[in-house]
C-alpha cells in the first residue's frame, strides 16, 4: 500500500467517528497495539524532544525501506505515533520525504490534538523525515 493509500484509509476510518470520544478510543486502541520498540533502543538518544510524554523512536533500513518502532509512556501519544508508523514504516526514504501530512488536519487531529509541543505530533513527523533524510544521504544504507 502506498502512503497515499494509507492516508485515504485513515481518513475514511476517522470519518466514521461521531464525536471526539470515539476518536480518542480509537487512538487509545492504536496505542495499545503499537509495534513495541526493543528495550535496548529505549535510550535517551532515541527520545523525541518537544513532547510532554516521553517518546522513543527507533529506525532501521531493510531492503531499501525504513522500519520504525516506537514507544511512549502515554497511551494517546502511543496511538499517534502508531498512526505515523502505519503511514511511514516500510517505505523508502524518498517516499517518506515526499509524503504530505496535511491530511492530519482533515481528520481532526488538528482540532483535538493541536500540533504543539504538548503532543509532539510535528516533532514525531520531523524526526521520521530526518531519519529518511539520513538514510538517503548514506546512499548505501547500513
Amino acid at each position, binding site marked *: 500500500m502506498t502512503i497515499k493509500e494509507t492516508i485515504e484509509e485513515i481518513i475514511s476510518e476517522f470519518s466514521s467517528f461521531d464525536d*471526539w*470520544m470515539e476518536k*480518542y*478510543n480509537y487512538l*487509545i486502541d492504536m496505542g495499545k497495539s503499537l509495534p513495541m520498540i526493543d528495550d535496548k533502543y529505549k535510550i535517551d538518544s532515541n527520545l523525541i524532544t518537544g513532547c*510532554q*510524554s516521553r517518546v522513543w523512536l527507533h529506525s532501521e533500513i531493510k531492503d531499501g525501506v525504513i522500519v520504525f518502532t516506537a514507544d511512549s*509512556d*502515554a*497511551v*494517546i*501519544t502511543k496511538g499517534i505515533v502508531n498512526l505515523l508508523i502505519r503511514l511511514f514504516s516500510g517505505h523508502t526514504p524518498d517516499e517518506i520525504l515526499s509524503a504530505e501530512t496535511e491530511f492530519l488536519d482533515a481528520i481532526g487531529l488538528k482540532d*483535538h*490534538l493541536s500540533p504543539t509541543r*504538548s*503532543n509532539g505530533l510535528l516533532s514525531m513527523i520531523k524526526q521520521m523525515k530526518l531519519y529518511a533524510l539520513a538514510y538517503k544521504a548514506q546512499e548505501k544504507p547500513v
Partner: protein
Amino acid sequence: MNPLIEKIRADFPILQQTIHGKPLAYFDNAATTQKPQSVIDTITRFYTEENSNVHRGVHRMSQAATQAYELARQKMADFLNASSSAEIIFTRGTTESINLVAYCYGEAFVNEGDEILISALEHHSDIVPWQQLCIRKKATLKVIPIFDNGELDLDAYKKLLSAKTRIVAVNHISNALGTINPIKEMIQLAHEMNIPVLIDGAQGLSHGPVDVQDLDCDFYTFSAHKMYGPMGIGGLYGKREWLEKMPPYQFGGEMISKVTFEKTTFNELPYKFEAGTPNVADAIGLGAAIDYLGQVGWETIRTQEADLLAYGTQQISAIKNVKIIGTATQKASIISFVMNNIHFFDAGTIIDQFGIAVRTGNHCTQPLMERLGIIGTIRASFAFYNTRNEIDRLVDAIGKVNELFE
C-alpha cells in the same frame, strides 16, 4: 451559585467563553490568573489616550504617564506595606527579579566557599539563577529537604544555616504542591545569623495579604500576571539597605544619573535597577489589578478559595485511582494529583475535552518531582472566581479518564 461569585465572574470576560463546546472551567490559575475588565480597560485606555514615555519629559502627556507609572509603584508599595516606593523595582516578573538579586547581590556579597540555601520545593526560576551564581563564584548550593507531604523540614533548615550561608531563597507558596511555607519563622531564624532572605512570591500575592515589614524579608519577588494583572510586568521588593549596596543589573536609560565618556554615575533607587524604557502600560495595569483585589477584598477571596480547596480535596481524593500529591497542613488552593498507571498527558488531554483547563507535567520543578519519585502531576489551581460546580465537572472528567484508560 453564590450571587457574589456570580457577580465576580461577570468581571472576567474570558470566563464567559466555551471551549470544545463546553463552558470554560479555568483551573490553571497558578500558571496565570485571568484579568478583570478593569485591568484590560486600563491598558487599553493607556495606549488609546495616555501613551507617552515616562520621566524627563516636560510635555503634558509625558508628565501624566510618569505620574501614572509612579502611582502604580506606590500602589504596589502599599499593597506589600513596603516602607517606601523606592524599595519597589519593576521588572518583567519573578524570574527576572530573582535573576537580578542572584546577580547583583551575588556580585557584591558571595565569594568562593560560600553557601546559598534554597529548598526542595523551588521552581526552576528559584534554582537556576543561584546555581549559575554558584558556578561563577565557586560557591555551593544547599537544599532544605522536605517531608513526603510537601512540608519543609525545619529542623534540617536550622542545621543547614551556617556561617557560610550568604542568602536563603525559598518560595512563599509552592507552585507545584500548594504548600504555604512558614516564611516568617524561617526569616527570623536566618536573621538570627545575619543571613538575608529572598522570598519567591510568585504564588504568594493572589491568596492573601503580604506585609513585607511584618515578615521582615529582605527581598520579595512577584509577577503581576499571577495576581490578576498583565503579563510582562512584576517586580522586586528589596530593603533599601541591600538595594543601596548592590551594583546595578543592566545599564542605560533611566538608571543613569550623569554620563561622560570617562565615567557614569547611577541614578538613585528605584531607578538604579530600571534600565531602559519601562513597561508603563502594564505597570499601570498592575495598579488596576491591585485596585480590583481591594474591591473584592481578602475576606471574600480567602473564604471562597478555602471552600474550593476543602471541597476539591474531598471530592478529588474520593475518586478511585487518584492520589493527591502535597498534603501539607497549610495549603493554598492548589491540588496536584497523580493517577495510577495513567500518564498525566493522557489525563490532561481528556480533561481538556470537557472544557476544563488544568496543567500537567513537572510544573518547572523537576528536582521536586524527582524527590517525590514521580515524573509529573495533574494540577488544578483555584481562584476565587471558580465554583464548586466547576469542581464537580472536573470530578466527572477524571471519572471519564478512569473509564477510558483502565
